[in-house]
């Protein structure tokens, strides 16, 4: 039962928030969340309770984090293939274009 789903707070009334989960709305109790929550915030919901207010910049930070993991393989030819995939060219770059 670890299922936790992130959603966006639409309204707050006392200790109940109305949260939008990618198109659906549900009430979520705020009794155990770690910080005050306001409309516009993102929260992580578990069995009807918000257990975390997700800082708004965190989604971007996480993506950057994962990019870094890929970036650390800069010297590796396989990573070059993989970068090709991400940029959508699908073609591994050859040595004559200056990449490693």
């Amino acid at each position, binding site marked *: 039962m*670890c299922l936790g789903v992130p959603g966006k707070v639409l309204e707050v009334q006392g200790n109940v928030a109305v949260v939008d989960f990618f198109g659906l709305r549900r009430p979520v109790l705020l009794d155990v969340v770690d910080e005050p929550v306001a409309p516009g915030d*993102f929260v992580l919901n578990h069995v009807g309770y918000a257990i975390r207010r997700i800082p708004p910049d965190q989604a971007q930070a996480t993506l950057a984090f994962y990019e870094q993991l890929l970036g650390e393989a800069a010297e590796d030819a396989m990573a070059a293939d993989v970068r090709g995939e991400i940029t959508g060219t699908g073609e591994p770059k050859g040595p004559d274009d200056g990449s490693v």
Partner: protein
Amino acid sequence: MDPSEQARRELKFRDPGKGRALAATLARVVADLGRAPVAVMHVCGSHEQAIAKFGLRATFPKGLDVIMGPGCPVCVTDVPEVDEAVALAEQGVRVATYGDMLRVPGSAASLADAQAEGASIDVVYGAAQAVEVARRTEDEVVFFASGFETTAVATAAVLLGHPPTNFSVLSAHKYIPPVMEIVAEMPGTRIEGFLAAGHAATITGWGVFEPFVERHGIPVVVAGFEPLDILAGLVKLVDLIAEGRPRVENMYPRCVTRDGNRNAQERLWRVFRPTGGCWRGIAHVPNGNLRLRDEFAEFDARRRFTIDLRGVRMRSPRALVDQCRCGEIMSGTASPRDCRLFGRECVPETPVGACMVSSEGTCKIWHQYGGHPDLRSRA
């Protein structure tokens, strides 16, 4: 696209291109380790579900074994605990339960069996809903509270919120960090790293794993549940194993901090105390069970009722139970395919062990995905 819509889309880390890139990176770091196979363990049913749902096992490199440990709270709920719930139901008490627990076999019967024979059972989605059931009736309502620490927080919140007098809790809650110790100490264990459950860590903080890493020299990575989270978590874990300087790494910073959710922790430990107890198939786990503190005795079903287990216990145990390998499967020393009952006598409609009942059970998940979660072998 407005920034909040952008953020909403990004909260689901599911870009297949990045996924393939991370899978390639994982293959590279495992190959670089040069000593296949390396085995790591995760202890969360939701991790296994995500792995199965996104078909990630088909992309894990051959040199990496990702083993599911005792992370299914339903599966580790021990037989006597299920018997207590069944006995209460048969005694005429109304039992509210998570849907997953309904069909878990006790000594001879499950709550579903009791229901078929006329007992009053309500399936609820959460503790708050169980309280609603109690508010709408004069009957005694017992909430059969299963789940790990993340779920126990909700039960604690409900008990701190002045529930009605006809409401009580039969706590089968468990606490994960102690069982990681057991697994790490098992003779013959091959586990070189742990992927920790991101949502439990949202509550406890990642600091809770530092003593474990210190004691056992095994790295721990806290990971989220999106496919990119899991792949990135595994890459980091193999990196840490290669590095040889074990520590805790938090790969789920959007939800997990070092200290965790203090508000939730405070409520959790105000209501519950850790005690030793049996986990199904794993025997004794010191401090692995959560029981209600004395201040909440009036809401403790074990103290409110005299639970009569004789009726439940007198029925003869099934011979198949002896062949059930749930315990080994849960501690990662066997896989479902090693069990003779898997897919034959033991299937979701007629489960022998708890691993086949729960939506987070290893056997249930493997069966759901055709018994071949990695699509590499065909029986």
